[in-house]
């Protein structure tokens, strides 16, 4: 039995317009998606803002009812058996919210331990263990309002693990964290996965998904556009290599000229501080570096590098313009 089973899940949002009560057209946030997560697997949901990732997680955590289709967690239907599902899942989301700022870290966990029915005689030991796990033991008596984003996020993880759930839903847990805090969080998630937990992770950070996930779905406009292992997704983008040219002032006409070269799969231009980066994905076994550079004026070229496709390349190719939403 899969730990998480999603079958033709659809979720619409209907909105009323003010006092008239007139209905606006429904927004289709999730359009009949299906996927399954095996026990012990770490599964990633990637997609641009508004793609439907959080909606999927909210359905699976029983906060939203599906408009159509079914979703099950460890065999329990999220719509008809929410209490059974809630006992077996942990839900962690990113950002500053979700904690009581005026309470200490310990009191926050104590409160949620009651809500999650952690037996009274185990609470103190469990809370102590989790505070150690997330490296907050020395700050446990401090009020949360004085915590940094990283500390809050680690406390969120501890909260989500209080009742030792076999399935964890992590909705952009590393959003807004500094690189060191994000790395620490990734290590914590990897440890949880190694301990056999089933994890559904949404993130905007491709390297995070690449590092942590066994399988990934890329979701766009409420539909899954690709699913597979990180390696499989990278191999599936069609690009043999990626030529990365940093420079400045590359005209749109030149970009179109490069895009039209035989063997070029796609071209994107990223505006970065102090210039541009031209990313040209080329077909396998093609040597186009000289021809591409020939299209550019010497004054437009900075550094040049050829590398293998990354998960981000696969994501950009699959999500296209919506990725910038």
């Amino acid at each position, binding site marked *: 039995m899969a730990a998480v089973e999603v079958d033709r899940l659809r979720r619409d*949002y*209907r909105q009323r317009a003010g006092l008239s009560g007139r209905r606006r057209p429904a927004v289709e946030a999730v359009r009949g998606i299906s996927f399954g997560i095996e026990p012990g697997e770490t599964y990633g949901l990637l997609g641009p803002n508004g793609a439907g990732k959080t909606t999927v997680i*909210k359905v699976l*955590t*029983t*906060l*939203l*009812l599906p408009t159509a289709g079914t979703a099950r967690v460890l065999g329990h239907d999220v719509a008809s058996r929410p*209490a059974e599902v*809630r*006992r077996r*899942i942990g*839900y962690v*989301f990113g*950002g*500053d*919210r*979700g*904690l*009581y*700022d*005026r*309470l200490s870290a310990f*009191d926050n966990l*104590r*409160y*949620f331990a*009651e*809500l*999650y*029915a952690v037996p*009274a005689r185990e609470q103190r030991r469990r809370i102590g263990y989790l505070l150690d796990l997330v490296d907050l033991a020395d700050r446990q008596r401090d*009020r949360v309002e004085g915590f940094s984003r990283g500390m809050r996020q680690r406390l969120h993880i501890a*909260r989500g693990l209080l*009742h030792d759930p076999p399935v964890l839903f992590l909705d952009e847990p590393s959003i807004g964290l500094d690189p060191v805090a994000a790395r620490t969080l990734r290590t914590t998630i990897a440890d949880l996965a190694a301990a056999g937990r089933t994890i559904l992770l949404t993130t905007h950070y491709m390297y995070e998904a690449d590092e942590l996930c066994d399988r990934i779905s890329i979701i766009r406009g409420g539909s899954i556009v690709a699913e597979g292992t990180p390696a499989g997704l990278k191999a599936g983008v069609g690009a043999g290599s990626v030529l990365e040219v940093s420079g400045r002032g590359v005209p749109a006409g030149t970009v179109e000229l490069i895009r039209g070269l035989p063997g070029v799969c796609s071209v994107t231009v990223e505006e970065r501080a102090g210039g541009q980066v031209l990313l040209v994905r080329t077909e396998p076994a093609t040597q186009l570096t000289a021809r591409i550079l020939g299209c550019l004026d010497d004054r437009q070229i900075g550094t040049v590098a050829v590398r293998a496709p990354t998960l981000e390349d696969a994501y950009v190719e699959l999500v296209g313009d919506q990725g910038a939403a």
Partner: protein
Amino acid sequence: MTRRALRLVAVTWWLQLRMMHRSAFDGVMQLVWPMFFATTALLIYRVGGDPDALTYAALGASVMTIWTAISSSASAILRRERGFGTLELLVAAPAPFALSVASIVLAVSTVGGYAIVATLLWARLVFGAHIAPDQPAVFALALLVTAAAFAVLGFLLSVTVVRYRTVWALGGALEFPVWLLCGFLVPVALLPAWVRGLSWLLPPTWGMRAVRAASAGQPAWADLAACAGIAAAYCVASAWLAGAVLRSARRHGTLSLS
């Protein structure tokens, strides 16, 4: 199960009180705000120079203060939880949602309980109102049951916020009508007949009658039973409503909207 539920109520009550206590401004406002209304009522009734009227006003004002405390904060409870981002976590937790909310309302009502005692002392010491109940035990019980009835009304208000985000404002809007309807400052008998029907449907009306009866040495048990019975019915209805609005909020996706 019962023991676990009691623990949840106790821990929630204690931690919510700690949160209120840690904001000096909120704490002072919770304690002082109801006294302004009580003082206004006492000043008005003192003008007539009738000691019985002043006692009438003192008893009414004491009960009025707990409603002031509860109506303003109970309806804002879940709005605050929404703001904290913890409402979804309360819902996603295995603990019954209605019990979690009721526990929070209980903490708010405890602050209101203080307001009753403070108002009676204020009326006695500052305005010289004669407050010497003939049946002290029944009087105290009547106050307690009335406070519980108000807590149930607060529970009802707070659960509706789960589905309808702007209902929190209703708490403030209901504050003064309930003063009138429940006979805190004006006898219910003076209200129009159709309004009296509404009064009898509100448990605090009966609680107020019990408080006055116990204070004057008259039989209070029937009123007390009516207050407790109607409050129990409200409690059951509110618990059912909590489940219904939660399902509706899950269907309409309004839980995380603020």
